[in-house]
């Protein structure tokens, strides 16, 4: 299905982004009367064009947006910054853009879009610790920004600081407790923390127990959630394996693993659900076509690793 210009194109695969950017001439020559979706369309078209390197169309979108909302609009300022970031060719030009951001923020330090752009630019230039400091400052004065908490978590995660990443994700969940994908994400981070922590069986078990809960919650919030069942399957497989290895871990009361029977039943459930999803999406059954093909392929691989006949 053709991608829609009404949604942010950041997550699209390259081929679909290209498809979007190729609509540029049509959209830019569109009717002069203003419609509801027009400016969202322009903004997303701008992003798609920048990504595919069509700077000319991007500049046209930018001019239209600026003509409509004025160059002092905070969102337009951020987009303008994005444009110059994309066109900067060397580090010196990037520094210049950064200085520009600083100058804007000196005038108005509550300009959120520019603050976020500055953080993203710092991160893109490899100055991760500066980005983290700026992000923490931003969260100090705007602690209800779920997107910023999520970015902070990702920043820590890429640095391997799992406990901080988990903390930031928990903050995201406080702000949007129904976000099933964030529950699954938290479960994934906890699972990765458990696999890398190596020494100290206690903390490893704790992470696994938490991850189990998170995946279960994501499934509770969303029927047939492939990502949630995938994670659940990973965690239960690992827990069952470890129980076979070391018969009894001392319970220190801080966390409680569900008893082995429950884990086994969860494992069976996840296996059944995963194979159902894989079967239906392989056959392209009606009503099962929403899943990402790569995710389905990963699930199939996981099932075949565990030697389950489909």
């Amino acid at each position, binding site marked *: *299905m053709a991608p*829609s210009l009404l*949604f*942010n194109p*950041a*997550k699209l695969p*390259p*081929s679909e*982004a*290209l*498809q979007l950017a190729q609509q540029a001439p049509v959209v830019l020559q569109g009717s002069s009367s203003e419609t509801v979706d027009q400016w969202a369309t322009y903004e997303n078209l701008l*992003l798609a064009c*920048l*990504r*595919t*390197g069509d700077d000319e169309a991007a500049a046209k979108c930018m001019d239209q947006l600026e003509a409509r909302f004025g160059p002092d609009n905070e969102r337009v300022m*951020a987009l303008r910054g*994005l444009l110059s*970031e*994309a066109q*900067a060719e060397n580090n010196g030009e990037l520094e210049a853009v950064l200085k520009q951001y600083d100058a804007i923020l000196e005038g108005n330090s509550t300009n959120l*879009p520019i603050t*976020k*752009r500055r*953080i*993203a630019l710092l*991160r*893109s230039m490899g100055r991760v610790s500066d980005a983290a400091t700026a992000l923490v400052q931003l969260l100090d004065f705007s602690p209800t920004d*779920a*997107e*910023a908490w*999520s*970015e902070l978590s*990702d920043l820590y995660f890429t640095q391997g600081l799992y406990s901080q990443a988990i903390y930031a994700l928990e903050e*995201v969940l406080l702000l*949007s407790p*129904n*976000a*099933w*994908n*964030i529950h699954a*994400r938290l479960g994934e981070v906890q699972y990765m923390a458990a696999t890398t922590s190596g020494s100290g069986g206690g903390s490893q078990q704790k992470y696994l127990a938490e991850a189990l809960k998170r995946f279960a919650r994501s499934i*509770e*919030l*969303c*029927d*047939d*959630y*492939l990502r949630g069942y995938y994670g659940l399957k990973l965690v239960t497989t690992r827990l069952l394996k470890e129980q076979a290895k070391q018969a009894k871990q001392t319970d220190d009361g801080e966390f409680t693993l569900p008893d082995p029977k429950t884990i086994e039943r969860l494992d069976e459930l996840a296996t059944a659900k995963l194979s159902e999803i894989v079967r239906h999406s392989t056959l392209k059954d*009606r*009503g*099962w*076509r*929403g*899943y990402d093909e790569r995710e389905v392929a990963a699930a199939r691989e996981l099932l075949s690793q565990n030697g389950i006949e489909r």
Partner: protein
Amino acid sequence: MTWISNTITVFGGLLLAHACYSAQEHAALQSFRAAATSTLTSSTPVASSLPVDIAIETIVATLVIVLGLVLGTRPLRPIQWRVWAGKIEREGEEGFLGNNGEVEKDYMGNPFTYLESRPSFVDIRRQRKEFAEWIKNGGGDAGKK
């Protein structure tokens, strides 16, 4: 299934039209009779009411039309969070088609994806680099069809 509901609705419409026609004919007959009797004998015109069968036909026709329309509606949207979310994940855009076969205007997929794509923090330079590499690796041919 749509043809069943359509036939029922059309049938109900025919019934209703028939009832209306009968009522109109009845009224015309009554006024003609009244005019005829009043010229012959100067008695007061008889109070005329609609025959019961016409009234019943009207009511039945209305019910049949309602039945046809109700059968013809699309399934209602889920009102439970997990069912709704599951529908988004499982069916994607296909689960949210309007009556005209296009995706409904207010469909937006998972409303929380922005927490993972984080559009305000987009790293446009990396995206450009990745896209250029994708083109270099021959991905552009697939996209140009």
